[in-house]
């Protein structure tokens, strides 16, 4: 290996990378899937969901934030990591209130799809049944905080793409909460629009258009037959509409 050898090892395979890439970027460029929820290729990584945790030269780290180094040995698709990821997804479920059977996002939801991917069948932990405020004040969009996983994708999209800074996270630990930048704290009192990029980036059913209901029949939704590792790199916009791009 010399200084110009820009390869690293992912699950036993040699992968080329471009200097400056994160493990996540290099892996997805090479077509390898690393589970993720808070990562989006267009935004600076936040590293909060921990689903992309991999083992780098024997140590745990988040693939979406760590730059690749030549010769790195990265483990991704292992039983150990997938069991840990299953526990992480289960924690996301019990912290919020996820009623998939009647959620409009069901079948097109990245959180649910990741639960399928990591083999989650039950919630394992006691449920918090936390009390979170639903915000139905906006004419076009519903904010159901019960389904929010605090990935900050709407925060980043609103700030960086829409130049509006409508969303933010407040509080710490289990009382972390998605807050709205208006005097009343209500979404309806902002200039948020269904045409904003932020209106179509939520990986779950937390920020969802009103009056659409269940537009795609069961059996034809994005993740009904395909694992998220097969369609996981889709732009969330396409995932939102259940399109295969």
């Amino acid at each position, binding site marked *: 290996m010399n200084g110009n050898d820009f390869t690293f090892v992912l699950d036993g395979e040699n992968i080329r990378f471009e200097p400056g890439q994160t493990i996540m970027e290099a892996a997805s460029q090479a077509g390898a899937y690393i589970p993720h929820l808070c990562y989006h290729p267009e935004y600076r990584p936040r590293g909060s969901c921990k689903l992309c945790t991999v083992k780098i030269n024997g140590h745990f780290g988040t693939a979406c934030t760590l730059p690749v180094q030549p010769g790195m040995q990265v483990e991704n698709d292992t039983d150990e990591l997938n069991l840990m990821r299953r526990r992480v997804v289960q924690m996301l*479920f019990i912290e919020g*209130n*996820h*009623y*998939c*059977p*009647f*959620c409009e996002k*069901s*079948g097109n939801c990245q959180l*649910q799809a990741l*639960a*399928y991917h990591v*083999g989650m*069948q*039950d*919630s*394992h932990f*006691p*449920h918090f*049944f936390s*009390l979170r405020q639903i915000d139905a004040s906006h004419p076009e969009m519903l904010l159901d905080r019960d389904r929010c996983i605090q990935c900050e994708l709407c925060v980043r999209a609103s700030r960086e793409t829409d130049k509006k800074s409508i969303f933010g996270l407040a509080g710490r630990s289990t009382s972390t909460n998605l807050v709205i930048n208006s005097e009343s704290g209500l979404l309806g009192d902002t200039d948020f629009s269904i045409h904003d990029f932020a209106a179509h980036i939520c990986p779950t059913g937390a920020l969802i258009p009103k009056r659409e209901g269940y537009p795609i029949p*069961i059996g034809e939704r994005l993740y009904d*037959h395909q*694992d998220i590792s097969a369609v996981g790199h889709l732009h969330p916009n396409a995932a939102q509409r259940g399109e295969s791009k």
Partner: protein
Amino acid sequence: MSKIRVATCSLAGCFGCHMSFLDLDERIADLVELIEFDRSPLTDIKIVDAAGVDIGLIEGGVCNAENVHTLREFRSRCRILVAVGACALTGGVPALRNRIPLQECFAEAYLQGAGIEAPQVPNDPELPLLLDRVYPLHEVVRIDHVLPGCPPPADAFWELLTALLAGREPDLDYALRRFD
């Protein structure tokens, strides 16, 4: 060979999981060659035989004191206990009341709701007391296997039962692990 004994039961559920089980259709005929039902809405036997059964399937969450009693007794008499469906696994639709204080639920249902005559909160000692919240089964007893779904597809019941009868771990493939 004596048949494997199976019991089924519904707590705070809608019997939809039982209906999905019946969607096994003609495969039920194959199944009854191998299993015998004990307590179940299908047999109308109300209490599991004191000698116990091999496999118990429970749908629904835990919403009142009677559910707790039934679940604990069921657990103690089933060698393998299977939590079936979204309500058993997460509380499901009945758990929507968890965000509303019990007094407010009572008031809406019995005192202030539309069309109520002679408003009063029922108080007969025969009525089971409601719990503060609707709980998933695993918060009350130990669970051995689960079938997710609302309801779980008939094929998931088939895989579970045929696996347990053959003494292997049930393995639900992608299409059988739905949350809705």
